[in-house]
């Protein structure tokens, strides 16, 4: 009890040193005060309550301070307080709260004693109040315990009932859970089916992808093939080109060589011809020489004959002379000398002849030598030219040999070619190979296009499959949504069920309350009504359940219908997409066709432009007598065109000439006119007649005749005119009034008819008229 609180423990040692039994302080303490009630002995302190201890403390404090203090001892309460009550008290006062009044001050001793009293009385009243309160509380608690006990029994009963109802509800729950499980299983099956479908679709999709990849690979291979083929074709073409170039070069070189050789041969031919000609000339010369020599020989022979004759003559002469010498002795010595002289001369002349012969021979030889020299020189020139030619030819030969070597090298390089003749064959083969390669490339391109089409198809099918997969996914999503819906429905149902349960519970609780309120005697009588109500409720519930089930079936139907419609729509969509794809394919194929046709049209137009035509359907005709075949006319047109030019030039020149001539003519005319007028004037003045000339047609023969009208300077009137007509060199006078006048007619008869002289008539007439005018 003492060691309850640390405060107490702390406090006690502080006082224990002082609180020894038998000590004077203790004696003082035990001493009873006259105003106080007999107090409990101090050994009770250990057993007593807190208040006593408190009092002790107060007392100890007073002891220490040496002052007298009144300490109140609380008696034990009559009511038995439980240990809890003391605890409460302790708590009430608190370890910190002190009711002690430390009166250490010695000056206020009286005051302190009064205070302790007050304190004691205060503590006592408080304790009493507390006690009362506690007692009341105890009573209350006991009543509440009683009520709680009764409640416990009630709750146990209700618990039992609840357990029962719980069991029944658990059964219901189990049934519903079983239904739920079955539905769940159904949904799971559905979902499994859809999963399977999805999986199969995915598998198909994968297959299609694999196929697509295969197609792509095939395409890539085909492209690679096409590329290789193209490369090969290119190579072949390059080879072909190179070969072509080489061959063309070779051909050119060979043609050049041929031309050179031809030139050489021509040259040699020419040379030979020239040589031949020179030879011919030489032979001719030789023949001429021979001829000349022959003639010379003849001459020489003649000379020789002459000289022989001379010699004979001389010999004869000599013989004669010898004879004469023999006969004539007088002239012997002279003759001898002459003979000697002559003989000398003869010898000389014979020597001369011999010399002349020699000289002639020499001359001939010199000419021959000259000829030979000339020919030799020519030959030497030719040989020099030949040498240069030879050098040139050798260089050419070298070049050709190198070319030949190159060619042979090239032929070695060309596979399958052994001779030069093989080169064109090789080229042809290469061309064929190129053609084949191009054909291959064409095939490859066509394959590529086919593969492209296949790839397109595969892509389309892939798209279709994807679309299908998406639709399936949508379906799955729908199914999932349905499942979710169903789950929600289940949740709703379970909530409904919970609600129903709660209603049941509430009913049960009500029932329990009613039951608890009823007396046990009434229980049996009223037992039928709650059962009935329960049955009713069950019926209601079952009906509600039926309704709910009907609802579920309706919802299921609606769902299946919606699913069906969705499936129909999906089918429709699929069919439409298929149609669309078909249409797209058609459009693509039509586009391709269009492009191809456009290309064809372009090619055909180009062909048409070139003028190409199909020989199977068309033939080209033209007039046999066309303008080209009879080229003469067209040529003549050109000629005329040319001649026209020249003509026009000529024309211009001529017009110029004409202009100049006309000018000249005009000038001449002018001059002539002047001269004529001058001449006429002169004639008029000299011969006294004005002569006018004009042409007329003869009235009988209708031949043009020239008529001259003469008028004398001395004529009396202007009417006095003479008319003459010149007809074919004959001059006739025509009769006029003037000539028929008697004076004139007489003159006419005398001069014209008798003497036929016009000049005399004219002179006479002039004289007559002169006389007449001057005399008159």
């Amino acid at each position, binding site marked *: 009890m003492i060691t309850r609180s640390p405060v107490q423990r702390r406090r006690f040692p502080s006082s224990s040193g002082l609180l020894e039994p038998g000590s004077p302080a203790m004696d003082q303490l035990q001493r009873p005060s006259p105003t106080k009630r007999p107090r409990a002995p101090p050994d009770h302190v250990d057993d007593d309550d807190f208040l006593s201890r408190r009092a002790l403390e107060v007392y100890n404090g007073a002891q220490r301070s040496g002052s007298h203090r009144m300490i109140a001892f609380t008696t034990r309460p009559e009511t038995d307080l439980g240990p809890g009550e003391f605890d409460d008290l302790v708590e009430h006062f608190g370890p910190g709260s002190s009711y002690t009044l430390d009166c250490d001050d010695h000056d206020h001793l009286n005051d302190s004693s009064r205070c302790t009293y007050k304190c004691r009385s205060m503590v006592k009243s408080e304790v009493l109040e507390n006690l009362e309160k506690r007692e009341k509380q105890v009573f209350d608690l006991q009543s509440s315990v009683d009520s709680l006990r009764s409640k416990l029994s009630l709750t146990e009963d209700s618990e039992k009932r609840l357990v029962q109802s719980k069991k029944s509800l658990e059964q219901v729950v189990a049934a519903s859970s079983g239904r739920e499980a079955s539905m769940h299983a159904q949904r799971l099956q559905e979902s499994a089916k859809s999963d399977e479908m999805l999986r199969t679709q995915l598998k198909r999709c994968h297959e299609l992808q694999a196929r697509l990849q295969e197609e792509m690979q095939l395409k890539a291979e085909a492209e690679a093939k096409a590329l290789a083929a193209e490369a090969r074709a290119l190579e072949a073409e390059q080879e072909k080109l190179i070969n072509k170039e080489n061959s063309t070069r070779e051909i050119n070189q060979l043609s050049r060589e041929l031309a050179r050789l031809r030139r050489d041969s021509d040259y040699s031919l020419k040379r030979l011809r020239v040589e031949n000609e020179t030879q011919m000339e030489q032979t001719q010369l030789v023949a001429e020489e021979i001829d000349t020599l022959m003639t010379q020989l003849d001459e020489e022979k003649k000379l020789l004959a002459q000289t022989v004759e001379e010699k004979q003559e001389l010999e004869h002469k000599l013989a004669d002379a010898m004879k004469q010498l023999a006969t004539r002795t007088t002239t012997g010595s002279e003759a001898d000398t002459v003979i000697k002289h002559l003989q000398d001369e003869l010898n000389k002349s014979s020597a001369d002849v011999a010399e002349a012969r020699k000289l002639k021979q020499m001359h001939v030889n010199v000419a021959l030598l000259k000829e030979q020299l000339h020919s030799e020189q020519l030959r030497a020139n030719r040989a020099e030219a030949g040498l240069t030619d030879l050098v040139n030819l050798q260089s050419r030969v070298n070049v050709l040999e190198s070319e030949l070597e190159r060619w042979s090298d090239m032929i070695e390089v060309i596979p399958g070619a052994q001779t030069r003749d093989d080169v064109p064959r090789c080229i042809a083969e290469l061309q064929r190979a190129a053609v084949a390669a191009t054909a291959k490339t064409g095939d490859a391109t066509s394959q590529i296009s086919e593969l492209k089409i296949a790839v397109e198809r595969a892509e389309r099918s892939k798209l279709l499959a994807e679309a299908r997969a998406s639709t399936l996914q949508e379906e799955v999503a729908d199914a999932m949504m349905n499942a979710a819906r169903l789950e929600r429905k289940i949740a709703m149902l379970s909530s409904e069920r919970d609600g129903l349960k709660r209603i049941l519970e509430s009913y049960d609780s009500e029932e329990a309350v009613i039951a608890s309120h009823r007396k046990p005697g009434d229980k049996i009588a009223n037992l039928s009504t709650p059962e009935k109500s329960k049955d009713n409720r069950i019926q209601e519930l079952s009906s509600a359940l039926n309704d709910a089930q009907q609802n579920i079936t309706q919802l299921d139907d609606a769902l299946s219908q919606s699913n069906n419609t969705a499936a129909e729509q999906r089918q429709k969509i699929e069919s439409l997409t298929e149609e669309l794809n078909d249409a797209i394919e058609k459009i693509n194929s039509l586009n391709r066709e269009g492009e191809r046709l456009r290309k064809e049209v372009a090619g055909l137009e180009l062909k048409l432009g070139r003028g190409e035509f199909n020989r199977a359907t068309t033939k080209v*005709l*033209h*007039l046999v007598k066309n303008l080209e075949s009879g080229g003469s*006319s067209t040529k003549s*047109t050109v000629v005329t*065109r040319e001649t026209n030019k020249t003509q026009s030039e000529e024309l211009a020149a001529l017009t110029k000439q004409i202009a100049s001539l006309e000018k000249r003519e005009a000038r001449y005319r002018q001059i002539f006119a002047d001269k004529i007028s001058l001449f006429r004037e002169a004639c008029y003045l000299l011969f006294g007649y004005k002569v006018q000339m004009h042409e007329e047609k003869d009235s009988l023969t209708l031949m043009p005749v020239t008529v001259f009208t003469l008028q004398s300077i001395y004529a009396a009137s202007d009417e006095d005119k003479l008319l003459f007509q010149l007809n074919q060199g004959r001059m006739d006078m025509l009769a006029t009034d003037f000539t028929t006048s008697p004076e004139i007619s007489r003159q006419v008869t005398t001069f014209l008819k008798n003497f036929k002289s016009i000049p005399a008539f004219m002179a006479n007439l002039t004289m007559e008229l002169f006389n007449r005018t001057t005399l008159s």
Partner: protein
Amino acid sequence: MASKQPTRDVITLKGSAAIVSEFLCYSVNSILFQRGVYPADEFGRVKKYGMTLLMCQQERVKAFIDTITQQIATWLETGTLQRVVMVIASMSTKEVLERWNFNIENDNEVIEKGVTREKSDKDIMTEIQAIMRQIAASVTFLPNIEEACTFDLLAYTSVDSEVPAEWAESDARLIHNPQVVKLRSIDTMVHQVEAMVAYKFTEEL
């Protein structure tokens, strides 16, 4: 009942053949003048198709073109003529310098069944005028002809057609690597004539 207008616009096979052959005659003459195949003073002015055209007055050329025009008309009536080509070739080298191509499309229904078509004369004349103007304008892009030239007319007929007397099969006289310029076309609704000129292409150096 029948007014003047529709009767004038009806085009028969014979009428179409006449129009087309006449057109070919005039265009050949025009080409001869424009390309200077014959000297300009050998041409006389003629009013036709609402414009002044030039016709060659050289008797030989006139006779040649007339003969061919008549034959073309008969061919057009039978529908066997496919093309008429005027070839201008060098006189010295015989090299073909220009090919004036008149491609003819025949309406087989008209030829076989004798039905008629309708098109106003004015429209046809406008088309012919356009081609004539194009021929005149072609001088601007065609290369200059510097040498003396001659010409020939080739008729492309179907293989089964009869070859008339004075006519013979000819070489097509193609130009190697030609430049082609397409000209306008005329359409009588019975015969469609597409004009085109191909010429020797000489690269500028």
